[in-house]
């Protein structure tokens, strides 16, 4: 049972690293620096269906670490931004997924909104509070990308519900 859980977590981490790499090949949102698709959120969102907080936190944390190894940004400013965003958004998304107040779309929007705000805050520690003005523009994009990832996760969850009997829940 324990090795099964270990395998599942490792698979989810690798999956989100792959999604992170894949994201770079999508048309970039680069006219707004800092805006990302955030597709790795899909993995976390789907994971809330059958995993506990510890596992999800591990997935988000290790995903940023391993992606930074691959992109060569380990221990740089970008790495701190990425890890703070990933960790904060997984906390918010897990809490919201327990409350049953939002559907996946709302949870995902809140997740990307938190990740953006925390990233901006962390970046403002490096370079002064002026960057907080950037919040408004980033919020518009986090709503956009959050709705897209939320809708994708809804579709995946629908597919997964067919196999629900085969899914073991880990809490």
């Amino acid at each position, binding site marked *: 049972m324990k090795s099964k859980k270990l395998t599942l977590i490792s698979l989810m981490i690798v999956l989100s690293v792959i999604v992170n790499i894949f994201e770079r090949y999508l048309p970039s949102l*680069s*006219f*707004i*620096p*800092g805006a990302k698709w955030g597709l790795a959120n899909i993995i976390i969102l789907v994971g809330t269906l059958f995993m506990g907080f510890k596992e999800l936190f591990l997935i988000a944390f290790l995903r940023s670490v391993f992606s930074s190894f691959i992109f060569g940004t380990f221990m740089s*400013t*970008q790495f701190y*931004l990425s890890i703070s965003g990933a960790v904060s958004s997984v906390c918010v998304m897990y809490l919201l997924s327990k409350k049953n*107040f*939002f*559907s996946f*779309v*709302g949870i995902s*929007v*809140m997740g990307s*909104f938190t990740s953006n705000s925390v990233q901006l805050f962390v*970046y403002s520690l*490096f*370079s*002064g*509070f*002026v*960057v*907080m*003005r*950037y*919040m*408004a*523009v980033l*919020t*518009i994009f*986090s*709503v956009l990308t959050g*709705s897209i990832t*939320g809708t994708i996760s*809804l579709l995946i969850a629908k597919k997964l519900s067919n196999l629900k009997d085969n899914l073991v829940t880990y809490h």
Partner: protein
Amino acid sequence: MKWTDFVLIVVLLVTSVLFITTSKVSNGTVIIQYENKIIGRYPINLDKKITFKGALGKMEIEIKNGKVRMRESKCPLQLCIKQGWISSPSVPIVCVPNKVIVYIKDNAKQDLMTK
């Protein structure tokens, strides 16, 4: 989708759009900041090209018709250049690899955040 999702999306969108549209300047200063220090101030209504040094080398901004843009930068992704012209104080140009921020400050209004 639940109705709460729509409420969340609409609230976030409306507040940020309001925030952007209410912050236009006629009389502002372009401020160049490098590693938390202000290294240059230039009036927004005076057309000018300014060259300075970022963490990765030479950078150049251009001020024209009350707008400002990054013209040249040595950063790998060139996000700051692709961002194009900005004219609102709520949209700074940020170049993370160069540790440079270029933003517009409204002279008419005392800004709490820059204090």
